C-alpha cells in the first residue's frame, strides 16, 4: 500500500510539473493584442491572401508547419474569424519566428 501510494504521489508530482509546463506553453502561445502571429491551418487547406487582407494581416513568410504562415497585425476579433475558417492563430515564438522590432 505504501509503495503504491508513493508511486501514485510521484505520478501526481509529475502531473503538477506537466500542468505547469502546459500552462506556460498555453500562455506563451496565446496570441497577444498585436504583433507577430503564426497561423496554422487545421483543415490542411492553404490560407488565402483575400482572407488576410480582409483581416488586415500582413504576410511575412511561411511558418514552420505545413501550410502555416507568419503574419503581423492585431488579434482583436481576428482569432475568432480565423477559427471559423479552420485556422488557429498563435503567438509566433521568437525562437522559431524571429524577433519583432517594436517601434513604440
Amino acid at each position, binding site marked *: 500500500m505504501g509503495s503504491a501510494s*508513493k508511486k501514485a*504521489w*510521484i505520478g*501526481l*508530482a509529475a*502531473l*503538477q*510539473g506537466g*500542468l*505547469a509546463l502546459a*500552462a*506556460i506553453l*498555453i*500562455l*506563451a502561445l*496565446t496570441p*497577444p*493584442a498585436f504583433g507577430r502571429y503564426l497561423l496554422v491551418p487545421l483543415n490542411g487547406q492553404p490560407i488565402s491572401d483575400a482572407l488576410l487582407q480582409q483581416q488586415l494581416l500582413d504576410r511575412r513568410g511561411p511558418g514552420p508547419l505545413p501550410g502555416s504562415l507568419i503574419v503581423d497585425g492585431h488579434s482583436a476579433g481576428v482569432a475568432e474569424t480565423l477559427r471559423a475558417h479552420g485556422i488557429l492563430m498563435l*503567438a509566433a*515564438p*521568437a*525562437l*522559431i519566428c524571429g*524577433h519583432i522590432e*517594436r517601434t513604440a
Partner: protein
Amino acid sequence: MDELRKLRLHGVQLLTACGWVCTVALLGLALTFDLKNEALAVGASILMNALPTLSAMRRRYDLATSAIFGVNAAVQPALLVYLLQGHPWQMEGHMYFFVGLAALTLLCDWRPIAVAVAVIAAHHLLLGYVVPEWVFLGSGDLPRVLVHALAVSLVLGLLGPVMVRMGRLFVAQADARAESERSADSAFEALAAARVAEGNAEAERTKRQAAERLANADAHRDELLAIAATFESSVAHIVQSVASAAQQLEKAAHDMHRFAHEAGEQSASAASEAESASRNAVKVSTGVSELSHSITAIATDAGKQAELGETARSSSATGESVIRTLTERTSNIETFVGLIDSVASQTNLLALNASIESARAGDAGAGFAVVAAEVKALAEKARDAAGQITSLVSDVDAGADEADAAIGQVSRAMAELSEAAGRMRQEIEDQRTVAAMIERSAVENASGADLIAQRIGEVAKSASEAVLLSDEVQASSASLSRVADGLKAATSEFLTKLRAA
C-alpha cells in the same frame, strides 16, 4: 509523529493557503489594472493549487509532495509576471519569485526549494528564447536570464544548507526529548526503589527500637511507679482544689445572680417611685406658679385699693376745709343778720316817731301816718326775715358741724384703710417672694427626682448585666467543674496505665 514531520505538515497547510491567496491576488490585480488574459492566468493558478490542496487534505508530505509545492511556488509568480505583460510593473513582479522561495522554508526542506529554483531557471531560459517579451518588458536577452537564474540558484545555495541544518536540529531535539523522557522514567523507577528500601529500613528500625524498649522496660518500671505516685499526689491535690474552687465559684455566682435580680427589682421600684415624685414635684411647681400669679394679681388690686383710699382721704380733707369755710361764712351771715335786725329796730322806732308826729299834725299828717305805718310794717317784716335767716344760719351751722364731724370720721377711716392696704401690699409682696422660693425649690426637686430616676435606671441596667454576668460565671464554673472531673478521671486512667506498663 516526530516534531519535524508535524512542522512540515503545518507548512503544507500554510503554503496551500498562500497558493489560494495568490489566486485571489491575481484576480484582484487583473480587475484593478484591467489586465489582459486574466481568465487564463487565474484559471492556471487555480489548476496549480489543486494538487497542493489535495496534499494538505491528505496530510501528506514526502518527496513528491515537496516537488508539487516547489512547482507551485515557481509557477504562481510566473503567472503574475505573465499577467503584468506590457505593464510597467512587470519587472517588479519578478520579486515574487524570491517570495515564493522564502515561503518554501515553511516546509523546512531543501528539496522543494531546489525544484522551484530549477523550474524558475528553466522556464526563464525557455521563455527567454521563445517569448522574450513575455519575460521582460521590451526584448529579453540571455545575460539577463542568466542573472536571474544565478540569483535564484544563490538562494538555493543559502537556504538549502539552512534547511538541512534546521531539519537535523529538529531531529536532534526530538531525540533529546525522547532521551530525557526515558531518563525521567528511569529516575522515577529509581525513586520508587529507594522508597521501598527506605520503608524496609524503617520497619527494621522499628523492630530494633521495640527490642530495646523491652530490654529497658524492667529498669524503667520502678522509676515510672515512683513518678506515678508523685504525679498522683500533686495532680490529685490540684484537681481537688480546682473542683472545690469551681463549686465555690458556682455558689457565689448563684448568690450574685439572686442579689443582682433583687437589686434589679428594687431599682425598678425605686425608679417608678422617683418618677412619681418627679411628677408630683412638677405638679407642686405648677400650683405654686399659679398661686404666685394669683398673689401678684391680689397685690395689684391692693395697690389700687390703697391708692383709692389715699384719694378718698384727700377728698375728705378738702370737704372738711370747705365745711370750715362754710362755717366761717355762716358767722359772717349772722353778723349781717344782726345789722339787719338793728336797722329794722331803728326803722321801727323811726316809724313810731313818725306816727306820733303825724298824729300831732292832725289831718295834714294823716297820709304821713299811713306811710309811717307801712314803714313800720316793713321794719317788722325785715326783723322777721332776719330772724328766719338767723334760724337758717343756725341750722346750716349745725349741719356744717355735723358734716365736719362726719368727714373727719371718713378721713380717719380712709387713713386707716390706706394704712391697712399698705400693710397688706407689703405682706402680699412677702408672700409672693415666698411663693417664688417655693416654686424654685419645687422645680429643683423635680429635676433632682428625674436625675434620681435616671440613676436608678442605670443601677437597674447594671443589675441586669450583673445577672447575665453571673449566669456566664455560673456556666463557666459548671464547665470548670466538669473539666476538673474529666481531668481527675484522665489522671486516674493515666496512672492506671502507667502502673500497668
